[in-house]
């Protein structure tokens, strides 16, 4: 889990071009400037590349925060 969050942080830094982003399980779209619906898709696709996995649309819609996203990733990798 901690490793997932650390790897996710790298992806977030890259996608949002902001190295100051610090992720926690409760971080949500409202906390990160520019995380809108368009950017969400780009972010998910970058995560697919970084973690070498493939999301289905229902897995990445309705996520409330980074914690839920990390859970989905861990479930797919596990």
């Amino acid at each position, binding site marked *: 889990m901690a490793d997932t969050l650390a790897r996710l942080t790298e992806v977030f830094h890259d996608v949002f*071009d*902001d190295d100051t982003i610090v992720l926690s399980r409760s971080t949500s779209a409202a906390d990160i*400037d520019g995380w*809108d*619906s*368009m950017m969400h*898709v*780009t972010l*998910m*696709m*970058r995560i697919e*590349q970084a973690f070498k996995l*493939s*999301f*289905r*649309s*229902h*897995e*990445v*819609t*309705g996520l409330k925060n980074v914690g839920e996203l990390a859970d989905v990733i861990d479930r797919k990798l596990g």
Partner: protein
Amino acid sequence: MSFVSPSFPAFFAVVFGIHYALSWNHRAQSVALIVASLGFYGWVDTWMVGLLLGAAMLGYVSALGVAADQAKGRDGGRWLGLVLAGNVGTLCTFKYFNFFDRQIVAALQALGVQANESSLQLILPIGLSFYTFQTLAYVIDVWRGHAQPKRDLIQYLLFVVFFCQLVAGPINRAKQLMPQVESVRRFDLTNVLSGLSLALWGAVKKVMIADTMSPYVDLIYAQPDPSWAMIWAAALGFTVSVLADFSGYTDLARGSARMLGFELADNFNHPYLANGPAEFWNRWHMSFSTWLRDYVYMPACFSPWVKRWITVPFSGEWSPFWHTTRALTLTMLVSGVWHGSTANYVFWGGYYAALGTVWTWVHSKVPKKLKKSRNWRPFTVPLMFMFTVVGMMIFREPDIGRFFSHLVRNPFGGTADQWVVAGGMLAMCAGGAAPLLLALVWERVVAPRLSTSPWALPVRTTSWAVALILLVTFYRRSTGEFVYFQF
């Protein structure tokens, strides 16, 4: 029945009275609301009630079928396929039968074959798109595991047929509306007064702004050769009036529902203050935009089939930018085709896809420091508004050739009379936009301070009185028809 028809207040008063008289039993409340909703919907054509109930029952059975299949370890996709085929098939039949009929006859005649258009000219049932989308979203959410299937037919039917949302949305999701349907609705004076204020404001927007402006916009568009100034003034007029019309309808729907104890999804959040296409779609017809995002755009982005057969072969490598561009194009074209079968709607969808793509690309090249500066938004909001007016011009003009001819007209051309007409239209735009801007100030500055003030009641009652005077004054011009009834 329309929200602004003379019979609606009487209808609503009766429903309101019965609804709260039955507040000892929420199932009895739900049955009463279902009966009222079917009466409201069948007011003009009773046959449409059959179609509504058919679509609702297809969704009900399919959701239960999905749940039963998934309980046995199956995917449940066959039920999803059934509801998709049934609902999308019905929607396409009613929306596009006449169009394809005309095209086939024209093609046959071009080949020298004698052919006549079918005598069967289908009339699009009011609200078909909206309740179809709501039902589809419900079944897809059950299939995805985002919603529980509803076994209680009464509560489910109310979720689909509730008259406040039935004819033109907003499109409500199961997770938002179903808990409200399942709980008892007790009389709450604060909610009732708030709902009444919202509904009255919606009626004022519709009757005073939209219905006053739209006949003049129509007159200019009906001119065979309007001047450049006239057509741009009319496009601006349409931009103002269509917002007043649709957001007015939404406020009437949400206000009426709130008076009955329901909070429906919001649909508009000052869309002309958007700082780009993505934000525009987060502010305009929000319940439909999020529907498209969740059920068209996201599947198009993440579908394995799209990735395998479209993305890699065409771009050579996996690229989020091109992938989202294709998904956005598909989504906006679906949105355009949904609005109608004429070419301008398809072009309108393509326009917003191109605008979204180019805007995103340019935005990514702008230095971050500039984007975060105070001057960025005052630059991007008017720019986006200008693109919105162009989009409205495409939307309003069924003849694409005429649209392009508008673009290349001489900006300084036109007779003195045409300049007077353009000036009058612009004055009307200012008059129509002023109440919308005042409402923004009210919402952000006055209302938060008024809520705890002793002036709240006198101000509220005065605003109701002003709203009623405006409604009575302007009502005779109202058609009672809403722009989005046709979709």
